[in-house]
């Protein structure tokens, strides 16, 4: 993952080493898939070159482009990242001011694309080059700060062309950080204490907090709850999240909860469940390890030592953003090689090989063999992680058929 603040101002050179100028802006396609299409290079003396991205050879401390590059005009559906997106006011669907765009996150593989916008304090500090120092100081004080991040899927691309950054949801649903913060805190406690804390909350808040917990906690909690209590919570939960949890339970328990649901919820959940009644669905293991992009290599190594003692195996660390969307992966090897204070987003691999519930088993195993991966993450349409599938489980189930 890259940030625009890290790219802006980089020198642009041709292969032969001729200096063109500095990168001042990027041009992107204002669409659901916001691909970056052009570089804007300031050559000084009011000379702006707009160079298509295909001419880039290397993107390191210096951006190297082909000698034979040509310039192009900006196209109809394209916008400037710096001019039209960065620093703009974000408003929610009701027109409430939310915050401004502090930085723009880009993923560079397979093609340079906007991943989302940074709306947190870290995004501000990054422009002054003090984000990591600040993070280190906070860690010394025993605190962590996670960057607040809005995924591109939350933004209406059509409104951008009109000069507005409009969200698809209401602000309330985005900015109620409390349940997530609470969830982070709860994840450090034993299941029994979590149950006790949750029993103090009203159902709506409890459901919201549970949604934000990791899947292992969710599964364990629902094992503790009576089917009646579970059903009440499911009523208040986002159906996708509810289905994810229900899928981790035994079939009998699942059925008991569903019968306790209201008519309307019952149909909704059942249809979602039937969708997931797929080859992959039955093979999902909730035994996997997730982390935030800001966590350092050292912190992850410590967390693995502390939290995965009863895992039967562990091969990868999966990285999810604040919206719990899967954004990257790191193998244990990569994790061990990384310097201790390097945050995950700096070395994680953002180009993911994933499975969906509907992926056929044979496709799944072919993918694993092709990319030499022993486990693959399973995600839903919102990129939320449902679990992982291991190559041995998959091979076993295919062998059973034969």
């Amino acid at each position, binding site marked *: 993952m890259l940030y625009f603040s890290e790219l802006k101002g980089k020198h642009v050179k041709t292969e032969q080493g001729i200096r063109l100028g500095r990168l001042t802006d990027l041009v992107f396609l204002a669409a659901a898939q916001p691909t970056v299409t052009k570089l804007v290079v300031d050559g000084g003396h009011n000379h702006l070159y707009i160079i298509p991205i295909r001419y880039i050879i290397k993107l390191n401390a210096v951006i190297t482009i082909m000698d034979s590059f040509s310039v192009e005009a900006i196209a109809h559906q394209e916008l400037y990242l710096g001019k039209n997106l960065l*620093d*703009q006011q974000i408003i929610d669907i009701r027109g*409430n001011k*939310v*915050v401004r765009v502090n930085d723009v996150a880009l993923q560079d593989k397979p093609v340079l694309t906007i991943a989302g916008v940074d709306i947190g304090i870290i995004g501000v500090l990054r422009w002054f080059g003090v984000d990591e120092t600040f993070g280190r100081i906070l860690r010394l004080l025993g605190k962590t700060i996670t960057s607040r991040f809005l995924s591109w899927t939350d933004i209406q691309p059509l409104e951008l062309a009109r000069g507005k950054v409009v969200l698809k949801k209401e602000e309330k649903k985005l900015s109620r950080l409390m349940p997530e913060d609470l969830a982070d805190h709860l994840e450090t406690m034993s299941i029994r204490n979590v149950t006790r804390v949750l029993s103090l909350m009203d159902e709506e808040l409890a459901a919201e907090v549970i949604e934000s917990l990791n899947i292992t906690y969710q599964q364990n909690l629902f094992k503790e709850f009576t089917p009646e209590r579970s059903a009440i919570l499911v009523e208040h939960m986002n159906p996708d999240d509810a289905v994810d949890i229900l899928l981790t339970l035994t079939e009998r328990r699942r059925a008991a909860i569903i019968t306790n649901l209201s008519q309307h919820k019952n149909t909704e959940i059942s249809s979602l469940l039937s969708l997931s009644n797929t080859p992959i669905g039955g093979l999902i293991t909730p035994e996997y390890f997730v982390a935030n992009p800001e966590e350092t290599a050292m912190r992850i190594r410590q967390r693995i030592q502390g939290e995965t003692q009863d895992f039967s195996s562990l091969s990868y660390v999966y990285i999810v953003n604040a919206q719990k969307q899967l954004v990257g992966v790191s193998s244990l090897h990569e994790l061990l090689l990384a310097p201790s204070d390097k945050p995950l987003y700096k070395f994680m691999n953002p180009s993911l090989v994933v499975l969906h519930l509907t992926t056929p088993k044979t496709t799944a195993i072919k993918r694993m063999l092709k990319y030499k991966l022993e486990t693959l993450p399973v995600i839903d349409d919102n990129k939320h992680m449902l679990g992982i599938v291991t190559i041995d489980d998959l091979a076993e189930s295919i062998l059973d058929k034969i």
Partner: protein
Amino acid sequence: MKNTLVRFRNIIVIAMAVVGPGIITAFADNDAAGVATYSVSASIFGYRMLSILIPITIVLAITQEIGARIAIVAQKGLGDLIRERYGIRVSVLLFAILASVNFFVVVQNVSGIKAGLQLFGMPPVFLPIMTAILFFFIVLAKYPIIERFFFVLIGFYVVYIASAFLAKPDWGLAIRSLGIPQGDISPAFIYTSVAVLGTIVTGWGQFFINSYIKDKHVSVEHLAYSRWEIYIGAVITNIFSFFMMVAVAATLFVNRIHVADAASAALSIQPFAGEFAGTLFGLGLLAAGMLGAIIVPLATAYAFSEFFGYSGSLDETFRKSKLFYGLFLVQIAAATAIVLLPNINLFRITIAANFLNGLVLPVIFYFLWRIANSDSIMGAHKNTRLQNILLVGAGVVITIAAVFGGAGQIFGW
């Protein structure tokens, strides 16, 4: 007949829609920090100080008008526009400068309230109660009621006219000083002049009028009315500055008494102009302190929500604009705490803090100048040639004066 009535009524309706921002912001420039600066400067330089009032009025009028015009045309605040055009680094730096300079002014206003309370024999314990009441009033009251409250506070400024008359000044000399420059170009006089300028034409005033107009939703058709409201506000405000300076010049300067703050000015006036004049002066100080203690921290909060895109406006509830009201609270609470510290003489910094206010003006004028001349933002309502000459001229003169006056202070010329 009927037609005239209808026309008259229309004018009143429009006036009601535009009156407020110009007059309130201009009067808030005569906050407790202002009263203190006038007192200190007039006690040192006497009637001579009056000679800078007319140029200051012109600078105030044109800069406030530009700020208001930008807000009406762009429907955006100065903070919004600076962030969108100049990016995050400039915004963070500018906000940091503005917030710290403003905080000095907040402290002066809160200590103005404290001094005002003391003049009426109330112990310092009333100060936190007073600031708490102000805070809850701003949070809970609806916008039109807050505006009316501002007008009530402004009404109290009449007491300065009364105390000026009670001081029996040399009116002939006062008027002459106003028209014919009596100033010298000693570094001390220039330093003090920049401070007087910095208390009348302020950085926060530029941000405040802008945000206030945006909140009031003045439409482009009413631009001309808004302009006149601002001009009138600037003139009236400086008429009051005139009376304050005259009151002090006629008593303290004439008797060679130098004061370090407004409260001691109020006390020192009494032997010469009578106890009543001193009391009036103190009452004015209390009202000025309250006006400033509300408006200056609000200006910082407005600027913050514009620069960083948070929801923030007097129109909105506490729940929705927590950061906005939170920032307001932090400032007045911190200022109250500082003012309550025993043995702290804040008025020593009166002139210095207002000099700093004057010092940042050219920076803000630069952004006003750039934005008010931008085709894409202002369209047909760009600055005229005359406005540009006055704005840039003021910026250049202030910069030179600030460098000269500041250097004079530092090197003790």
